[in-house]
Every structure is written in C-alpha cells, then in structure tokens.
C-alpha cells in the first residue's frame, strides 16, 4: 500500500474511533467497589500498629515468652551436650570429606589431561560445549515464547 493510501486509512480510522463515547459502566461497579473498601482487611495483612490492642498485647507477651524461654533453655544446656552432638554428626561430616577428596582427585586428573592434550584441543572443546549450551538456550527461549504467545500473536 502506498503512503497516501496508508494516510487515508489512518484518517479514516481516526474519524471512526474519535467519536466513540464512553461505554456505560456496569450498574454494580460502584456498589462492589464501595463494598470492597468497607470490607476490613484480615488482621495479619495490616501493619502491626493497625492490630487491635488485645492482639498487640498478646503478641508482645508471646514474643517475650519465646525469647525468655530460649535464653533459659541455653542456660540449662549441659556442657557435654555439644561434644555429644559433634560425635553423632561425625559420620555425616566424614561423608562430605570423602566427597571432597574425590572431587579433588578428579580436578587433578583434569589438570593432567589438559597438560597432556594441549591447550588448543581443550579450547576447542570449551567452544563446542559453549556453542551447544547457547543453541539449547536459544531453542528453549523460542519454544517458550511460541508457547506463551500463541499462533500469530505477540505477547499480548
């Protein structure tokens, strides 16, 4: 379409759309808006200062009791308790140590391999892996966008 016809089309649509008056709002809109305003928000969604006084007092009492109870509990902990806990956890920590040793051995083997195969070969491998990741990410993005937009539409 040439620019003149495009301009004519634009003017035509402007004329058609400019004169449109407001649509009538549904009769219930005002009532439901006012109702929504009058409905009190649940107490837990209000700021603390907006809570009822008894609720605030109860909250302070419970919070103080929890903190006080925690402090008192710490005082009655037996000195040998921590040592006992550490002894009981030792199988788990030993597992982590073994895992770390395996990782270190693999890293050493990799370093040895790099030294043996040459930097050029390793660089080519790195480029190939990066390229493959980029292709996967690119296709993934395209598929997700296609799925979200639907056929023949943009993101709206």
């Amino acid at each position, binding site marked *: 379409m040439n620019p003149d016809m495009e301009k004519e089309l634009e003017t035509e*649509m402007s004329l058609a759309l400019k004169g449109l008056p407001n*649509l009538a709002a549904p009769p219930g809109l005002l009532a439901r808006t006012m109702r929504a305003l009058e409905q009190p928000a649940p107490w837990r969604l209000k700021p603390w200062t907006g809570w009822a006084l008894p609720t605030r007092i109860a909250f302070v009492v419970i919070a103080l009791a929890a903190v006080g109870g925690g402090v008192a509990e710490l005082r009655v902990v037996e000195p040998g308790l921590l040592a006992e806990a550490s002894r009981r956890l030792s199988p788990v920590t030993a597992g982590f140590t073994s895992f770390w040793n395996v990782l270190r051995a693999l890293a050493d083997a990799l370093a040895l391999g790099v030294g043996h195969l040459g930097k050029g070969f390793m660089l080519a491998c790195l480029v190939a892996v990066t390229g493959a990741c980029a292709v996967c990410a690119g296709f993934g993005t395209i598929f997700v966008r296609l799925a979200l937009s639907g056929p023949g539409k943009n*993101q709206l």
Partner: protein
Amino acid sequence: MTDAQQFEAFVRNYQDMVFSTAMRLTANAAEAEDISQEVFLRAFEHFSELAGDPRAGGWLKRVAINLSLNHLSRYRARWSFFSELVHRNPAGEEAEIEYAAPNDVEEDYAVAERRLLVEQALRQLPSAQRVPMILFHLEGMKYEEIAAKLGVSLAKVKTDIFRARTAMRKSLSPRLQNDWRPAA
C-alpha cells in the same frame, strides 16, 4: 459530605471513562469490571491527593491502561496458546454494548448504530492488533510510546496498527455508509 460519600461521587463521575478504557483494551466485560474496581481501590489510597485535582481523570486513565495491559500480558498469555488450538472464533462471546447516557438526547440513530458497529469490529480484532490501535487512536499515544509500553519493536507496532486498520475497514465497509470517510 463524608469521605465515603465524596469517594462515591468520585467513582460515579469517572466510572464510565475507566470502564471504557479497560473494556476497549481487554474486550471482555467481566475483566474490565475487575480492572475498573482495582483502579478505584488504588485511587482510594491516593484520594486525598486526587480529590479536587483536575488531573485525576488522567491519573485514572493511566492506571486503567497499565492494569489492562498487565492483565492482558500476565493472564491471557498463559492459556491463549492452548485455548486457540481448540477455539479460534474471535466473535464467540459477544457482550451487549451499552453507551453512557448521551448529552444530546436527540442523538441520531444512524450515528449510534455506526458506533455500535465500530465497537463490535474493535472487539473482533486480536488483542495484538486492537491494543496498539486503541492506544494510538483513542489514547493519543505515539508509535514510539506504544512500542515502549508494550515492549515490542516500533516496526511491529506499525505493522499491527496497519493490520488492525485494514481489518476494521474490511469489517466495516460492507455495513457502513461512507459518511466518516475523508473526501478523496
């Protein structure tokens, strides 16, 4: 007058404008009503500043546009792909169009009918075309502003608006007289 009464008058004053903006962008009466309510709930939070401010209408319109666009991009995109595989009839759910009371009670019947047809043609456009067209023609936004608002390229905005105009012309021309066409 109490605060509640003042706000009620405020809502009554602007509800048609807010609803129209949301309705034309979403093309769905129930969604437009939800959006309108949300606009007024937000307005209530700033009512001390908005009350008596001549720019309140502009503020409401801006919020209505933003919420409508958010709604379209956030909720519709999730199911449009699957729903369109099954059902692709854009004129499927036609809600009755009702205009706010006209200022001139002797409004020409032909004009009213023409407006009705324009509204119906607008609703039949896919949202990707309808939204930029409304933002351009009814909200007076520039192509660049629309592109920034919708997060799409300038070329896409121009193409979508052109397609929307062409589709509107195709849809309207058999049913309307050429009374709103510019002189050749």
